C-alpha cells in the first residue's frame, strides 16, 4: 500500500501536491523514454561488441600467422634488426559522443597518410608487408572493441540508475502522491459534510427557538 506523505490538510498543500504529481508524471515519461532508448543502444552496442570481438580474434590470429611466415622467411634475428627502428607512437583521435545524457568515449585511429612503414623495402619481402598490414588492422580492431566495451559499461551503469529512478517513481513516489491527494480530498469532503450537518443542526435549533 502506498505510504501517505505527512502534510497539513489544507487546500494549498493539495495544490502543491497536485503540482508535484504532474512533475513526477512528466519525469516518469521522460525516464521511461530514456530507459527504452538506452536499452536499444545497449543491445545494439552489445551486438556490435560481439562482432568486434570475433573480428579481433580472427585478425590477431591471421596477423600472428603472417608474422610467423615472415620470421620463417627472414629469420628472427634479421627480422628483429629490420623492425627495431620502425617503432612509432600509435595515434588515436579521442573524443566523446552523447547518448541520452550518457557520454560515451569515441576513438578513431589516425592514419599518418604515408604508405611507408619505416623498414627497408629492398631487404624485406611481401610476407612482412602483409604481416604489417594485418597488425595495423589489429590496432584498429582493438580500438573499436575498446570503445564498444567502455560504452557497454557506461550504458549498463546508466540503465541501472535509470531503472531505479523509474521504479521509485512508478511504485513509490507517484502512488504516494496519489494516495495523499485522495486522502486530502476525502478529508475535505468529510469537512464539508460535517459543516453541512452542523448548519442543519443550527437551523433546527434556531427553528425550535
Amino acid at each position, binding site marked *: 500500500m502506498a*505510504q*501517505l*506523505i*505527512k502534510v497539513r490538510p489544507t487546500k494549498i498543500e493539495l495544490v502543491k501536491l497536485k503540482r*508535484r504529481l504532474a*512533475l*513526477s*508524471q*512528466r*519525469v516518469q*515519461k*521522460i*525516464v*521511461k*523514454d*530514456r530507459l*527504452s*532508448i538506452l536499452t*536499444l*543502444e545497449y543491445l*545494439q552496442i552489445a551486438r556490435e561488441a560481439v562482432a568486434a570481438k570475433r573480428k579481433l580474434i580472427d585478425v590477431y590470429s591471421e596477423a600472428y600467422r603472417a608474422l610467423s611466415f615472415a620470421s620463417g622467411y627472414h629469420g628472427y634475428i634479421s627480422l628483429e634488426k629490420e623492425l627495431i627502428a620502425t617503432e612509432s607512437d600509435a595515434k588515436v*583521435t579521442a*573524443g*566523446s*559522443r*552523447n*547518448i*541520452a*545524457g550518457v*557520454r560515451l568515449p*569515441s576513438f*578513431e585511429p589516425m592514419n599518418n597518410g604515408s604508405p611507408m612503414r619505416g623498414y627497408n623495402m629492398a631487404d624485406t619481402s611481401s610476407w612482412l608487408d602483409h604481416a604489417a598490414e594485418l597488425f595495423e588492422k589489429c590496432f584498429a580492431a582493438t580500438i573499436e572493441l575498446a570503445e564498444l566495451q567502455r560504452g557497454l559499461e557506461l550504458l549498463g551503469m546508466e540503465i541501472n540508475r535509470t531503472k531505479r*529512478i523509474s521504479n521509485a*517513481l512508478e511504485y513509490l*513516489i507517484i502512488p*504516494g502522491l496519489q494516495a495523499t491527494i485522495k486522502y486530502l480530498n476525502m478529508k475535505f469532503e468529510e469537512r464539508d459534510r460535517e459543516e453541512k450537518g452542523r448548519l442543519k443542526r443550527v437551523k433546527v435549533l434556531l427553528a425550535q427557538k
Partner: protein
Amino acid sequence: MLNNLPYEKLLQECLSGELRLVNAGLPRSQQRLSDLLHEEYPHTACNDGSTHLFKKKELEYLASKTSPDEQKALLLPILIQLGQNQAEAAIICQTDVTPKVISRILDMPVTPQQGRITIYKPQLALLRKTLKTTTQYVFSTKIVE
C-alpha cells in the same frame, strides 16, 4: 504517515535534475556537412560544455550519399525527437535535404509532416546503427495524454 519533507524536497530536485540531464548533451549549433568534411577533428560544442566528435567514416558515408550542393545544406547532427509516443520517434528536418538523406539511408520513401519525419523503432535502430555520431536524441518534455 511519513515524516520526510526534506527527503521529498531532495527528490524533487533530483527529478528536475533528470529533466536537465537528458537534454544537456544537445549541440549548441548544427554544422554543415561540407564544413565538417574539411575539418581535421570534426566536432561540435554541446550545451553542457562538452564536445561531440563526429566520426570521419560516417561523414564520408554521408558525403557518398549526397551531392556537393546537398552537402552544403545538410546540417549535422540530425536531431531525433522522442517523447510523443514510446513506439515512434520524429526526425527534425530543418532543410529539404534531410528527408532525402534519411530516405536513401533507410531505403524507403519518407514524407515530412510539419518539419518532422515519423519513424518507428526498427528504423530508428537501423538509422542509429549507420549514423552513430551524426544523429542526436532530443527529449520532448510535453505530456501527451
